[in-house]
């Protein structure tokens, strides 16, 4: 067994912090997150009989059926808010293609081998565009199968197709959220960006150096 020696650095005197998310963006994110979670719970309850017990969280099957689409409306509006704030930072560039080709290094956490990145990496951009697409499709197919208000507007065959697409899209959306949540847990220091709105300079240096270089000269970076 190898023995590792860890050299502890001398006492740290300064810490730098970089502002990453405004209060508005944070509130917007958490409304989206809570709404998504409630949608997933109520949707899964009706997705598979083994999860029907989840309807108990909402006050029974009929209430779950009635509430779920309204949560969808809130999610669409809330996500639209996030989309407008973040879309321009999520445009694909050459670094992202490079990052994707080195996905093995990403998973191992060997970030020194990866290109310097701006505000988001390709994985984060994937979550962003993936959710944007899926929330839109889920909303549209959801309207079709919202029987209480839109029943009978289209043919039954269209209804069947919409129900199928809705279920498939929901599966991928939940899958993507599992990746998103895990990435936030795995990459230590990320959650602070959405709770306190700022990250440490070291976090930015390690994961988004290009972004840090840009922010370094501005008032978004500060010492403590």
């Amino acid at each position, binding site marked *: 067994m190898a023995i590792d020696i860890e050299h502890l650095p001398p006492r*740290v005197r300064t810490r730098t912090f970089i502002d990453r998310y405004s209060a508005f963006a944070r509130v917007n994110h958490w409304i989206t997150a809570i709404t998504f979670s409630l949608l997933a719970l109520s949707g899964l309850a009706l997705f598979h009989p083994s999860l*029907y017990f989840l309807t108990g969280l909402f006050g029974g*099957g009929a209430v779950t059926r009635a509430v779920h689409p309204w949560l969808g409306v809130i999610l669409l509006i809330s996500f639209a808010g996030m989309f407008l704030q973040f879309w321009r930072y999520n445009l694909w560039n050459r670094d992202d293609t490079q990052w994707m080709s080195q996905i093995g290094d990403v998973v191992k956490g060997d970030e020194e081998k990866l290109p310097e990145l701006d505000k988001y990496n390709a994985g984060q951009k994937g979550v962003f565009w993936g959710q944007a697409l899926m929330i839109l499709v889920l909303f549209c197919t959801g309207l079709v199968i919202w029987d209480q208000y839109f*029943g009978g507007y289209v043919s039954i065959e269209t209804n*069947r197709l919409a*129900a199928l697409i809705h279920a498939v899209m929901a599966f991928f959306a939940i899958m993507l959220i599992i990746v998103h949540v895990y990435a936030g847990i795995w990459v230590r220091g990320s959650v602070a960006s959405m709770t306190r709105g700022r990250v440490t300079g070291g976090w930015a240096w*390690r994961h988004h150096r290009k972004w840090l*270089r840009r922010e370094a000269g501005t008032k978004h*970076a500060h010492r403590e």
Partner: protein
Amino acid sequence: MANQSLNLQRRSASTDTPPVTGGQAIEVAKLIDVSKCIGCKACQSACLEWNNLREEVGVNTGVYDNPHDLTPNSWTLMRFAEWDNPDNGNLEWLIRKDGCMHCADPGCLKACPAPGAIVQYTNGIVDFVHENCIGCGYCIKGCPFNIPRVSKVDHKAYKCSLCSDRVAVGQGPACAKACPTTAIMFGTKEAMKAQAEKRIADLKSRGFSNAGLYDPEGVGGTHVMYVLHHNDKPHIYAGLPDKPRISPLVAAWKGTGKAFALGALALAAIGAFVHHTIVGPNKVSEHDEENAAELVEEGKSGAAPSSPETRPV
């Protein structure tokens, strides 16, 4: 609630097989002989009366269909179709009593997400249990015959129960009892098939060479069957499906893929846990912090000294 006098064969959204008491169940069936129907709508009235339903007074749009479609209150409906017979030039008035077909393989039950909201009794009747219904309308998507209707008042789905409450006590359905020409008959499925055979032989002797029994295989057979004079083209009877079956879209939506999807979601969560166990947390090192501090320092001292913000810890 489900009729306690009848044994359950299947329950929606449930994997458990309901316990069956008593001996071999006898399958029942309603036989509707379209060739004997005179379109009097006594069956519709009897249905409303027995089930204590009231239909709204509608408007006439120039056809005999009244109401214009099945509703949460009208579980059966006479549909009138005029058909030009190209073989002999006759105008034939085809009147079909529409309503739930009580499929042996019920699409509504398979699509239903609420446990026990749709049941199938061992005698073949498919019944909606309203206290369990959540009003999602999935049964409408599952049904190959477009029968269930969701009420705008109580948001629950309704359709013909084949008078399961009457059948449980040895009575026939209200519509069959009211029919003045015995175009609607009720009995064991076997007896009804035998009866249909006699009628079909009679119709064939009168020149309806394609007369036959409508008991479609695609849904495992039905517990409401039609004697049709033109069994080679059921669609002329106000759109009766030629080859009904549960839509492949519904089968895909409600198939075993669901269990795989749940499994995949669970695997993703487990995979994340395993990854964290192997790779460990992706932590920021002290070295990273020093590099960042240096960079920020340079940025501040360089061009554009835009109010350096220093907060006390």
